């Protein structure tokens, strides 16, 4: 069966796209899926670092596109999971080295090899983003619970609709339950209310995410970690499972139970 291509984008930078790609990929692979991650952030690659595969790079995405190597040669196999691969970005080139149709061709070649292709988009709405969504069957938009990240996510959702890549699915990352309770952050309900798209995951703020990324070991493998569980739930929902949102994932639930307006 041919792979599904899922692009992870955001609009605003630094909200957790790369973290999401790495963790969702690991979670899918841990469930027996064959997964290829493609780092679409050319010139600013870091998916390889987060996945702990940096020192194994020989060929990259641009090498494949420009015919210097075969696709298989650029697919770095993960040490922990047998069917998890990374196609790294070129660090020394810029995004004009790749066109949207290059990405479509690359993914078409990759589709028969795996079940999932996850593409890490660069921030912004320029060429690199257009490349990253060109081949996508589904786009996840990552945001944080702050006004500017949500505003940029809204922009991206609109562009995805116009480019016939919608409707996007929303990941709300770095939710700090205490801050939401105090009213210092947008609540999940506020965000959904504005963006009006379907939610696929809510990931709590957790410093272990940073520790794990620095070690190159996505924390999804740690089943007790709450952020890790949230990424696993995203993977399961992508696979079509109905997974209830964890209690910690829905701060608005309490307000609803108490009959108050979540504002």
């Amino acid at each position, binding site marked *: 069966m041919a792979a599904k291509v899922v692009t992870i984008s955001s609009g605003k930078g630094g909200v957790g796209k790369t973290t999401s790609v790495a963790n969702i990929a690991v979670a899918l692979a841990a469930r027996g899926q064959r997964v290829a991650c493609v780092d679409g952030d050319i010139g600013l690659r870091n998916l390889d670092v987060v996945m702990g595969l940096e020192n194994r790079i020989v060929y990259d995405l641009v090498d494949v596109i420009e015919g210097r190597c075969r696709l298989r040669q650029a697919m770095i196999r993960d040490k922990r999971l047998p069917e998890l691969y990374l196609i790294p970005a070129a660090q020394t080139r810029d995004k004009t080295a790749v066109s949207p149709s290059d990405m479509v061709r690359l993914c078409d070649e990759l589709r028969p090899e795996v079940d999932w292709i996850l593409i890490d988009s660069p921030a912004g709405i320029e060429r690199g983003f257009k490349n990253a969504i060109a081949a996508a069957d589904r786009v996840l938009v990552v945001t944080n619970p702050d006004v500017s990240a949500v505003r940029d996510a*809204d922009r991206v959702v*609109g*562009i995805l*609709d*116009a480019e*016939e890549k919608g409707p996007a699915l929303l990941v709300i990352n770095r939710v700090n339950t205490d801050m939401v309770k105090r009213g210092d952050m947008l609540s999940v309900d506020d965000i959904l209310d*504005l963006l009006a798209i379907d939610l696929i995951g809510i990931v709590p703020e957790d410093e272990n995410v940073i520790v794990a990324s620095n070690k190159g070991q996505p924390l999804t493998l740690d089943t007790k970690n709450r952020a890790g569980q949230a990424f696993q739930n995203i993977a399961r929902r992508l696979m079509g499972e109905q997974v209830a949102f964890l209690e910690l994932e829905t701060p608005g639930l309490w307000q609803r139970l108490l009959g108050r307006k979540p*504002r």
Partner: protein
Amino acid sequence: MDDLPLIQIKGIRDGLLVTLGQAPWPDLLAALAHQVETQPAFFQGARLALDVGSCALRVAELSALRDQLSERGITLWAVLSESSLTEATAQNLGLATRLSKPKPPQVQEVSEAIPAEAAKWVRGPLRSGAKITHEGPVVVLGDVNPGAEIVAGGSVIVWGRLRGVVHAGAGGDEKAVVCALELSPTQLRIAGEIAISPRKQGKNQPEVARLVDGRLVAEPWQA
């Protein structure tokens, strides 16, 4: 090779008009690319109107073409077509679909001169980055999100939440009004008056804003 050229180019008042012949879209694209490559000086900085005949084009195809042209310094501003899909696509991308453009919206217009039928209907939500400009009234079915902007010569009616920026009576019409099911715009202007709305009003009732003695006031919307 071919008897009929795939592409005809002529100069018009608004720049160049390129008329495409009958052929599959990729062939037409290739022919156009060839023309542009071989005569870069002729096309550099040009404003281009494209007549695609009956070709049915989707957003992805047309936006890709526009990107390619813009990389070569060519502005695609209009797409003419007999296909309603293509016309809709072009409109979606903010391209003109006829050559005689309506006057630019900055032009001062007296909105009484505009019949009610000239209202522009927009399906929402209008998301951040979207901008609607129209000489007459604007009606939005859906929300207007923060970061979206409406500039209308006439009134603005939002069947949804209005949280973006709206300017009604942009040509100076002080009788223009703004109504919304929830009126909490980032900024609201009627004619020359500006109001910046307080962060959250909590009033979830339809309201209408109008100018009364030169001051912007909002009151419950009662038809």
